[in-house]
């Protein structure tokens, strides 16, 4: 079974909740799909046994010695990546989307496509099972494809190690890597917070998730920041047919545990928040 934890809004506590779930029960595979800001490895210190290069995309590089400045590439590029400065063609790596169009039409073959090869995917073991995670190099594209690579690896690892549960820690937002994280999973868990932004962003990520699964559960983190808002979020969830998985109180010990490199369940097993998280996890995995 694959479960994905997402949020829409960043910083609602996705990774802290994922870390708690990953250490709450039986051994499992954890996959960090937040490839732009992978954090779970900081808590789990996995021992890598594989490291793979991920080619996210390509960018165009012009050889000015060959270039005749005919301007064809400049006129066809739709990403405003090609400009002419002092009679020389300049290609902006930041704006180039790697479509190969310019390199294909250049009459003197002055443009080469260079792969971005600084992104990595790692796989290894951590104290409660196996862990797979990706790290997208800054400015690289196609994070959704790296998420797919992480998920495929996690499935293989689960099979090889006879593990039944794959837990995905998703990225914030609603874009490409989020779509790749929730496509085809068995359950989506949305972690939100009782703020207007939390509610608005939850609705947007919900719209993405419900295209892929009917099994959506919501956790309201730091519910006691604003109980009236918590009530209205719960009301919205019920109307949408989402499962209300639980409310978690604000507890500084979550941060304290993080600083010690542990999940809150590991460090403060008797805390109210740990007990609630454990109960939610047992319910989510009851049928596995």
């Amino acid at each position: 079974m694959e479960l994905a934890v997402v949020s829409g809004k960043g910083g609602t506590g996705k990774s802290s909740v994922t870390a708690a779930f990953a250490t709450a029960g039986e051994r499992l595979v954890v996959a960090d799909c937040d490839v732009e800001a992978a954090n779970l490895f900081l808590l789990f210190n996995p021992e890598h046994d594989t490291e793979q290069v991920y080619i996210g995309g390509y960018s165009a590089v012009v050889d000015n010695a060959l270039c005749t400045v005919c301007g064809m590439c400049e006129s066809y590029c739709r990403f405003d990546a090609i400009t002419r400065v002092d009679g020389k063609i300049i290609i902006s790596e930041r704006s180039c989307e790697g479509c190969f169009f310019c390199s294909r039409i250049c009459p003197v073959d002055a443009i080469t496509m260079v792969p971005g090869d600084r992104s990595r995917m790692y796989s290894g073991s951590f104290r409660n099972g196996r862990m797979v995670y990706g790290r997208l190099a800054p400015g690289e594209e196609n994070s959704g494809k790296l998420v797919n690579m992480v998920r495929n690896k996690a499935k293989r690892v689960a099979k090889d190690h006879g593990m039944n549960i794959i837990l995905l820690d998703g990225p914030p937002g609603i874009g490409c890597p989020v779509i790749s994280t929730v496509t085809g999973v068995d359950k989506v868990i949305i972690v939100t917070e009782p703020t207007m932004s939390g509610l608005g962003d939850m609705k947007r990520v919900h719209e993405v998730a419900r295209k892929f699964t009917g099994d959506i559960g919501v956790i309201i983190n730091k519910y006691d920041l604003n109980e009236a808002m918590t009530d209205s979020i719960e009301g919205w969830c019920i109307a949408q047919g989402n499962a209300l998985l639980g409310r978690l109180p604000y507890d500084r010990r979550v941060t304290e545990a993080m600083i010690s490199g542990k999940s809150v369940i590991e460090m403060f097993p008797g805390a109210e928040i740990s007990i609630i998280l454990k109960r939610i996890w047992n319910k989510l995995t009851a049928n596995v």
Partner: protein
Amino acid sequence: MRIAVASGKGGTGKTFVATNLFNVLSRRGDRVTLTDCDAEAPNDLLFFRTEKVSVKEVTHQVPVINKDVCTWCGRCSQWCSFNAIFFVPNAKVIEVIESICHGCGACSYACNDEAITEKPLTLGTVTSYMTDKNNPLIEARLHVNEISTVRVINAAIKESGDEGVVILDAPPGTSCPFIQTVDKADFVVLVTEPTPFGLSDLRQSVETLKEMSKEPAVIINRSDIGDRDVAGYLEKEKIPLLAEIRYDPAIARAYSEGRLVTDEMPELASLFEELADKIIDRYGTGSSKR
């Protein structure tokens, strides 16, 4: 000048800082624009009383294949670097997968049979608002299930112009949407929190900005919830620390209800006024005065 408020990690307080900075500058009558570049999760609008001025759709051109003319040569599919043209020649199947098309136009050029025309596909919207203090607020909003965030952000930044101070509320992460936003800023403020996750993501943002030859300054939000490792890192890297904002349930509560702390908490109003002065005096180009 354009100031980008960014962070690697989500939820550290970018929107909190951007909206309050905008608010103190608006209140004192400066020429200031707030641009919400977090197109996947835009929230700045929640904090202001505004009137809608205009809505622009952001589109790109996607191919339409006329199967009656198509000779099934497959060139369009070969030229597509994004696998957005699904082509099975024997079964005479050819379909454009619009959601992954980047709109580069290579397929239309590649087609020798004039079988490809193009149509606009809406990716999102850029909406201009005017606040009750007469300052523009521009919002980039990506349509759900679209992926070309960057185009929507670029359109919003273009719409914002460069008069006075323009505050860009950046998207989280360090990939293209972040880079496109900070690339257009004269100065970047990174908002972080003093936790291992906050530090790890801050480090990644700083390294990315360094590669772009940009020198950021940092605000530590909820400065008393974690450890001192972030402060230590800033000292070691000689990155200016602009402000520390302590955790306060009253701030969290105001934020949760879409209220601005600079309107209700005098000590935060002065903190943000000082912050604005510091940024504009030290890093500013041109004047924000009307």
